[in-house]
């Protein structure tokens, strides 16, 4: 199940963060998102590392812990998408399709003339669209 989704600007300024669990572990999830940023920066700065091809937007698995997996995606505008899931055997291909649809929603949200680049995304339609993508992704939220 997807427990947390975040969009972080290129100066690591948070643009959007949403957790999908009732439990009050939001703080822990935010911390995880934070530390995954360093993994992304490190992976971008010296692209010699293995894993997905160097200049691909999908960064793959960032830092697996015992009961969470954190995936990353970096756009051409240096904006980072981070996803935290408890589903330990999720396939990379599914993650790619998820991120592509999430990226489509993000693009529409920032193309809104009233959105100020670099500021938090406050669009209601974006939040609804993200919720439907998460829901329809087969990993239904609990309860």
């Amino acid at each position, binding site marked *: 199940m997807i427990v947390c989704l975040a969009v972080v600007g*290129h100066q690591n300024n948070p643009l959007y963060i949403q957790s999908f669990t009732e439990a009050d572990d939001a703080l822990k999830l935010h911390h995880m998102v934070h530390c995954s940023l360093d993994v992304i920066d490190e992976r971008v700065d010296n692209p010699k590392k293995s894993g997905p091809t160097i*200049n691909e*937007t*999908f960064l793959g698995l960032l830092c697996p812990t015992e009961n969470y997996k954190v995936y990353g995606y970096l756009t051409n*505008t240096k904006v980072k998408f981070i996803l935290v899931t408890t589903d330990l055997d999720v396939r990379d291909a599914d993650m*790619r399709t998820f991120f592509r649809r999430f990226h489509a929603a993000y*693009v529409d949200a*920032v*193309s809104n003339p009233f959105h100020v*680049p670099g500021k938090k995304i406050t669009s209601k339609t974006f939040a609804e669209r993200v919720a439907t993508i998460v829901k329809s992704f087969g990993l239904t939220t609990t309860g």
Partner: protein
Amino acid sequence: MGFRESHFPSGLEVHKRNSPCPTFTIHIEIALWETLSKGKQKVSLSAFAFLFSELVQYNQTQVDNIAELERRLEDAGYAVGARVLELLCHREKGNRRETRLLGILSFIHSTVWKVLFGKVADSLEKGTEHEDEYMNSEKELLVNRFISIPKDMGAFNCGAFVAGIVKGVLDNAGFPAVVTAHFVPVDGQQRPRTTILIKFVEEVLLREARLG
């Protein structure tokens, strides 16, 4: 408007990854572009021309010198450029990130120009005197097509709007640069061509060198 065959950029051999013969690539790319942007909505050129002329005339009332007018047009263009980058990266580049200078220049020269102006830019050249300068030129820049500049406005160039778009794309893709629009006379022609001059900041060139 028929899709005019654009001649290949003279100055700089723009690096095409997958095909030996440049003109051959152009044909594939057009076909590909058609499919990618099929079903894309269109509006008439005059609708854009009239709208753009209102943008110019409105800003004329808000400024008292030409430099400020160009700056305001550039700001308007910047906002467009930032959003165009998001739109195009997602739609055209799919899952590939642009990390190299030539890559982003080629992206502007072809993909951005095709989506905005319906054709690849006429030419993309590397500056001869300065390492950090590149010139993207257009015989008849869309925004200048219906505009005749009265004498008292000197070297005013509405292309500043397009310079803003290019700057919006470059800054947001991590290649900050100073971008300006200039009229360059073409011998034997009544109308000058418009050149968008791109001057990258120091840090971009250093990073480019580091990536080798």
